[in-house]
């Protein structure tokens, strides 16, 4: 496909033809793609379909095995991310890549810090940063704060801010909204609209298909490394999109009907760990899914960590299985022994052993039953169990001896889920379990969560995806500024009510602090 030399403004901004890339297996096979000016071109596909690989190739992070790219009519074969940026192509990566001790401002402008003879001009830096932070909704945050102190949602926004910080012709957003809640997503869409108007071409990768339909002009679908379709978004109903992605019909999404609740499995009362957790009390019963909603940074993760014993709580009691005596969970070990499981929101740093085989990741939390006398691991059993779980979750890997690092994001998440399923706990806390997981995988995890509840387990589901909470939860607790602001039963809630509750703490806080600041 040799594009005729076109007028600079009329032809596509970027064309890709016959792109191949293999790691140990083929990641991209003969992919062709094009992007126009002022267009949002969405890229969807299952986990491991090759979306991020394509994005990385366009952005110069990875080099293709073969294939040709043209940028604005010129041949384009960037050898580094820097070179791509020089040509006006920027990528906001799927996996967070922030450097803890750097400040927010430094992170945004990293690689092109304003300086005079090497000396950083901090005033200019912080001022420019403030403007950009305002745009993504982090206006109130001090740009001199180290990014290491931010929660994962805020980190994601900082990455987006870095992507927006410089004029570019092409902006690639790889799952920018995976850790964001609705208000931030709205703000991001405003920014995308603005860039569109300026003529920037945007490649938008996401597993949230409604989102994709809403903002994109065209949608391309990847399956197993091949492009299967590219169509205007208007001509692509949701059902078609899913069918093309998965290559088959997905069953009905899980519909949960209200059921008689069992006895209390876990009751938390007056949990405090300032500043993030001020007063958290709730109860979750056997056979129930308790959703946790809240804005980014509302303290959900911190509260769960404190319950699980990962952080020391300042105050608060925890009662298990209806017992009247509180238990003290001082460490994750004690929590796990008492039947709690905690799937962390940050799989790379807190969930996985990246360089170890997938098998070892899956069995890590429950090696005792796999070992005989003196702790010798029964290796055949271990392999069999790991394979069983991988199959149950449809974890896609060439071999379970592959290091976890080589899996696509979604499959990594499945490995972490498998770990906790293997441990077989009674009370499961899932923090953003579907972050970065494709629609098929999501459905599987939903079914799984429902199945766990069905079996009488108590499930806590923390999620930034309200749709998911609404579909799955029996009750929803809404956190705001470190407190449980409200709890709704199924049927009593509405999106508006939940949002109002999520905002309530912040309004009070702002009024309270108004005089002081």
């Amino acid at each position: 496909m040799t594009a005729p030399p076109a007028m600079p403004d009329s032809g596509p901004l970027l064309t890709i033809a016959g792109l191949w890339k293999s790691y140990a297996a083929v990641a991209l096979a003969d992919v062709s793609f094009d992007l126009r000016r002022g267009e949002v071109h969405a890229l969807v596909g299952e986990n491991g379909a090759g979306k991020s690989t394509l994005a990385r190739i366009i952005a110069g992070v990875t080099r293709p095995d073969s294939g040709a790219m043209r940028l604005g009519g010129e041949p384009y074969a960037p050898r580094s991310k820097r070179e791509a940026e020089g040509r006006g192509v920027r990528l906001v990566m799927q996996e967070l890549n922030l450097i803890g001790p750097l400040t927010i401002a430094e992170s945004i402008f990293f690689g092109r810090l304003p300086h005079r003879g090497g000396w950083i001009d901090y005033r200019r830096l912080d001022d420019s940063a403030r403007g950009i932070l305002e745009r993504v909704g982090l206006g109130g945050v001090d740009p001199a704060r180290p990014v290491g102190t931010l929660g994962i949602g805020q980190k994601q926004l900082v990455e987006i801010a870095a992507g927006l910080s410089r004029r570019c012709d092409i902006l690639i957003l790889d799952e920018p909204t995976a850790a964001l809640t609705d208000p931030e997503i709205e703000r991001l869409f405003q920014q995308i609209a603005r860039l569109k108007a300026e003529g920037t071409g945007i490649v938008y990768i996401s597993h949230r298909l409604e989102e994709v339909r809403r903002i994109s002009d065209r949608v391309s679908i990847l399956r197993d490394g091949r492009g299967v379709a590219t169509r205007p978004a208007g001509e692509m109903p949701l059902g078609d999109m899913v069918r093309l992605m998965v290559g088959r019909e997905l069953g009905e999404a899980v519909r949960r009907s209200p059921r008689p609740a069992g006895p209390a499995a876990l009751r938390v009362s007056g949990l405090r760990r300032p500043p993030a957790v001020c007063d958290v009390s709730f109860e979750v019963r056997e056979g129930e899914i308790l959703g946790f909603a809240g804005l980014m940074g509302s303290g959900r993760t911190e509260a769960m960590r404190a319950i699980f014993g990962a952080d020391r709580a300042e105050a608060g009691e925890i009662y298990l299985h209806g017992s009247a005596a509180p238990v003290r969970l001082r460490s994750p070990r004690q929590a796990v022994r008492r039947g709690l499981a905690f799937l962390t929101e940050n799989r790379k740093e807190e969930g996985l052993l990246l360089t170890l085989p997938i098998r070892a990741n899956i069995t890590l939390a429950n090696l005792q039953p796999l070992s005989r006398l003196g702790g010798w691991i029964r290796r055949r059993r271990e392999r069999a169990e790991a394979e069983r779980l991988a199959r149950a979750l449809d974890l896609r890997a060439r071999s379970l001896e592959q290091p976890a690092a080589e899996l696509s994001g979604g499959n990594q998440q499945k490995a972490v889920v498998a770990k906790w399923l293997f441990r077989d706990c009674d009370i499961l806390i899932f923090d953003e379990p579907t972050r970065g997981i494709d629609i098929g995988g999501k459905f599987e995890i939903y079914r799984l969560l429902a199945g766990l509840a069905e079996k009488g387990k108590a499930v806590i589901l923390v999620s930034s995806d309200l749709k998911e909470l609404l579909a799955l939860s029996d009750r929803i607790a809404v956190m705001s500024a470190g407190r449980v602001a409200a709890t709704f039963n199924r049927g009593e809630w509405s999106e508006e009510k939940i949002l109002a509750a999520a905002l309530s703490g912040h309004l009070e806080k702002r009024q309270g602090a108004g005089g002081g600041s």
Partner: protein
Amino acid sequence: MSEPQPKIDHGLRLPWLGFAADYLGMAAALAALIAVFSLGTEHFFSATTFRTIANQIPSAILIATAMTYVLIIREIDLSVGSVLGWCSAVLGVAVARWQWPVPLALLAAAGAGFLCGLFNGLVTIRWRLPSFIVTLGMLEMARGAAHALTSSQTQYLGSAVEDIAGASIFGLSLPFLLAMAVVIAAQLVLSRTVFGRYMVAIGTNEEAVRLSGIDPRPVKLAVFTLTGFLVAAAAIIDTSRFQSANPNAGTGFELQAVAAAVIGGTSLMGGRGSVVSTFFGVLIIAVLNSGLAAVGARDETKRLVTGAVIVAAVIADHYRHRLARGE
């Protein structure tokens, strides 16, 4: 298994099939060294030489094995040399000055090593300090204690402890056979047991291990105290071999042990290592020392060659890994 499977050695399993391939590089390096020295000298290539080397290295093997474990959990123990001196001092003084019965003295030496390991482990874990610095402190303290106890005097023990290092079958000493047994056991524990799996996991991502409901601290403490024990065993072996206990014994052993482990492909970043490879590393260093001494090389030549071999070995390991990954 007909499908092509990627070959990944994370020290998790002892891949009996891939065994040869894994250790082939190191064995080749060793063979090359032996060949060079055999051509360069008259008597190097002889059973005596190899027996001599075998009987010299048991303490180095034990210490390097311990260091491999410590490195796998992403820590380091710089105090092994000093603790060896301290354990020797305890043994020597107990036998020669206090006239304790030998078994009791051996127990005391083992206890001395145990306490040092325990201290290293407890302080490192309790305050989450870098073991580099904690064991650096112990390096000074144990050496100071050794000197204080012996008044800096070498203790002559004579035949009291001679039997321990006495020759056994085929001229191979009991300590050598013991060291070999330790290597094999340590490799099996590393690759086949829950404890070994935890070690590798902790070295890879300690926080993830903790959040999986496993307390990493007992494992780490066990590794540090085990190190203390193995160092004490090394001290007993050396003391018995020299029939004397020198408070300066073991100076510089820490870096040698790290070098042996790293030449064997153990990662300083934790999570990767193999005791058997470390054993090859010890062998390479021992053959190098012995060969250079047989040649009668000048001291500066010895240092230059040793340094160059260390660097060359890790570069070679880099290429071996690339080859193994099929790049």
